[in-house]
């Protein structure tokens, strides 16, 4: 997407708001317009501002998140973020994009955001080289076959991309790289590592063996990683 998604957070809990603010700040393509402590405050803001996405709690005093949704004539994308499963059916009946239980992990948050960025039925931006990632090295753009990329490692302001027999150091962030890689093939398993799921050789304890390297799996990514693997 070329333009950023204008989003608001609506939650009466200050700690949750701050956590979500951190997640939004970490996510490329999102622009936080406001962090509202009530549905009424959000309702007032929605009548004045063009908002693309609401990160919305359910249980709030005076007006609940579901009541806010029912009151809107034009609904932006909505990701419900709540502690309870019991509102999921009502929420999906109101056509929310996703429903996340607290505490929210970053991978789960990112998965929901991707649904907003590439909703079903909306064609994704056409790329002329769907199987390749072009990286700038010196004055050249080098096309790397996605299937040849083994993993990506964070290095301060740079990332190091490992392919078979070669490494490329590129000026980019991990977030930037993640947005360029297909999510069905690549996954972030640690703050500092993205791996090609097709290239994982084994997993021992909380370590992935890939391309002869031992990669730690961050605690928040562990469960998510297991759900992505084809296991018996």
């Amino acid at each position, binding site marked *: 997407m070329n333009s950023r998604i204008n989003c608001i957070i609506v939650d*009466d*809990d*200050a*700690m*949750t708001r*701050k*956590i979500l603010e*951190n*997640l939004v700040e*970490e996510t490329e393509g999102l622009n936080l317009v406001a962090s509202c402590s009530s549905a009424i405050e959000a309702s007032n803001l929605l009548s004045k501002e063009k908002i693309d996405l609401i990160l919305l709690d359910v*249980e709030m*005093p005076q007006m609940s998140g579901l009541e806010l949704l029912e009151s809107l004539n034009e609904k932006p994308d909505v990701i419900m973020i709540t*502690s*309870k499963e019991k509102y999921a059916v009502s929420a999906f009946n109101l056509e929310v994009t996703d429903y996340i239980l*607290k*505490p929210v*992990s*970053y991978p789960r948050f990112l998965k929901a955001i991707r649904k907003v960025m590439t909703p079903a039925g909306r064609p994704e931006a056409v790329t002329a080289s769907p199987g390749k990632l072009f990286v700038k090295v010196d004055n050249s753009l080098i096309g790397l076959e996605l299937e040849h990329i083994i993993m990506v490692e964070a290095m301060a302001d740079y990332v190091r991309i490992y392919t078979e027999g070669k490494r490329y150091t590129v000026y980019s962030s991990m977030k930037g790289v993640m947005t360029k890689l297909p999510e069905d093939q690549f996954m972030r398993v640690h*703050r500092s590592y993205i791996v090609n799921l097709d290239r994982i050789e084994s997993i021992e304890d909380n370590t992935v063996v890939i391309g002869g390297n031992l990669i730690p799996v*961050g*605690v*928040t990514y562990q469960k998510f990683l297991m759900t992505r693997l084809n296991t018996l």
Partner: protein
Amino acid sequence: MKDQQNDSQSIDLNYLTTITGGDRDKLIELLKIFLDQTPQTFKQLNTSVGLMQGAQVKAQAAQLKANLNYIGRENLILTLSQLESEFEISPNSQKVQDLLREIRERLDILQADIKGLVGFLLKD
């Protein structure tokens, strides 16, 4: 209370550390919000129990539980759930009062521990 000593030893910062990417200032900010917010929410819960306002009791207990979940305090979350159940059965019961007192005492200990932790992080 038998769990108090365990409670005081088990602040789990795993989630908050991950979510802040290990940024100490952000971690301190979140812990300070916990310190500001929790006593107020408990006070509201206490009032709502006294006024027998069931919906408010649920909402305030849910807020406390969400915040406690962020620092891995499952024991205290269970006690809050127990309070909600007892309140539904008999809002005036001695058991409800006992649970409220227990929660307050354990939150006080937790607050002191987190204040100590914030002080340590600020010095570091």
